[in-house]
């Protein structure tokens, strides 16, 4: 019932919503980023972070620090927050929280399959996986040689199983069709998540559908840009676009025909919400596009905190932490490699 969530939302969601807002208030602010960008060594970074929510996690890290240590510990903080929310959540919030991790599961599966294809050590690959996307039996993914096998051996027991129906072929895995598999899975996942949020309705439905539509459009643009100059046909490309979002369906038709980044720009710029994103970057400069999209996403995610009695804050929190960890990784890398003047190119200020 739209507009009346306030009456009943707090029965199951009020406590956790308040907690996630508490977590949000512990995120790094612009002042923190300014301090961090003054750091000379990774130990300085650790010292600055010790006053934030990351403090307890970095406390016992022995010197010398590495960027990977910092990122790993910070990710651990996100994972712990997420798990503490998940164990207290009831339906449908727990389902909602689980949906958030499916994206990470897809990434992990693809990571391992690609790694196995290039004959990398499975243990090494497992360490690189995002901890939110772990599931039992993830290591056996490496044993699969084609998609039917992958599905039958491993993924039939994971939540991804229903998404696989679109991409089961008995072809051998190679770089190209792994990428196609990733995008097909992601498309199915986004569509499923979208229907789920729509079914929840109310403010959750409204906000989440907007956020997911943005995500879907961003993926559509990225798929187009990445597939320019590859052997992916236009029809195949069209199949990878999710069937919702602002660009659906006419924008997708245009995107499917694009041959260079400037055409993509022309196609997407027709949609007013995306105009400011492209206004920030020069023609022919598609590397900056990622950052521009991240900035827009962060802006949208922060806005969800302006409304109460909905689940989108949980999604926003996980995504914002993710962005924060990306920022920390960039800062640490810059500090570690003595590229301090480039720090401000890569971070997206959150608060």
């Amino acid at each position: 019932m739209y507009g009346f969530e306030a009456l009943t939302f707090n029965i199951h969601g009020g406590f956790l919503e308040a907690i996630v807002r508490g977590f949000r208030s512990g995120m790094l602010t612009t002042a923190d980023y300014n301090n961090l960008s003054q750091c000379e060594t990774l130990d300085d970074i650790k010292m600055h972070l010790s006053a934030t929510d990351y403090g307890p996690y970095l406390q016992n890290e022995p010197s010398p620090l590495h960027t990977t240590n910092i990122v790993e510990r910070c990710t651990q903080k996100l994972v712990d927050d997420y798990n503490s929310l998940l164990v207290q959540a009831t339906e449908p919030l727990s389902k909602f929280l689980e949906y958030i991790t499916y994206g990470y599961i897809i990434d992990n599966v693809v990571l391992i399959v690609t790694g196995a294809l290039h004959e990398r050590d499975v243990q090494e690959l497992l360490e690189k996986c995002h901890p939110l996307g772990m599931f039992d039996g993830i290591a056996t993914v490496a044993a699969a040689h084609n998609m039917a096998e992958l599905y039958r051996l491993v993924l039939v027991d994971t939540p991804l199983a229903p998404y696989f129906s679109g991409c089961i072929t008995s072809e051998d895995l190679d770089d190209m069709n792994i990428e196609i598999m990733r995008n097909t899975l992601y498309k199915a996942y986004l569509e499923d998540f979208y229907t789920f949020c729509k079914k929840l309705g109310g403010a959750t439905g409204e906000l989440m559908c907007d956020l997911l539509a943005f995500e879907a459009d961003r993926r559509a643009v990225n798929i187009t840009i990445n597939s320019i100059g590859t052997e992916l046909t236009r029809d195949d490309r069209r199949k990878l676009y999710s069937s919702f979002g602002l660009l659906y369906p006419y924008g997708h038709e245009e995107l499917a025909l694009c041959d260079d980044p400037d055409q993509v720009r022309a196609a997407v710029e027709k949609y007013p919400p995306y105009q400011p994103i492209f206004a920030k970057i020069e023609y022919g400069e598609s590397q900056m596009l990622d950052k521009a999209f991240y900035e827009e996403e962060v802006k949208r995610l922060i806005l969800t905190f302006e409304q109460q009695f909905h689940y989108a804050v949980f999604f926003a929190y996980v995504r914002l932490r993710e962005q924060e960890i990306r920022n920390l990784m960039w800062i640490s890398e810059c500090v570690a490699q003595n590229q301090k003047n480039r720090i401000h190119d890569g971070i997206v200020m959150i608060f």
Partner: protein
Amino acid sequence: MRAADSSSWRHALLYISPYTFAAIGIAISIGVSVLGASWGIYVTGSSLIGAAIKAPRITSKNLISVIFCEAVAIYGVIVAIILQTKLESVTRDYQHTAESMRAGYSIFASGIIVGFANLVCGICVGVIGSSCALSDAQNSTLFVKILVIEIFGSALGLFGVIVGIIMSAQATWPKAT
């Protein structure tokens, strides 16, 4: 009192004792008020507890929101007590006179007014109280501002109480001569 047809609804309603109406009115006045108050308290309370985990300083300040909700239940109790003092016994002969019926209906109406005014007032205060707790946890300067909104919200219940008390003044029972 005459009713056209002894098996009609009108007949049935007219022959319900005015004491029944009065008693139901009193029950609604307190019962529904308490429902509103408890609704408000759980909406506020669940957010308050969650928000207090990261910002423990808000707990004692935000008890005010809970007290505002509680006040709504107290209005209900007060009105219920006022209403029950209006009950007087009349002899069986006078029980269905126009004056007795009026007394019964006015206590009934007064109870409904107070009960439902307090129900929505409790929900209103509760929802604002929940937002108050969450925003106070983020930025303590917002507390006073939201408190003002909350006070206006809790005034709504008072309107119901005032009208209810005036209404119950209509309840006079026929004096046995």
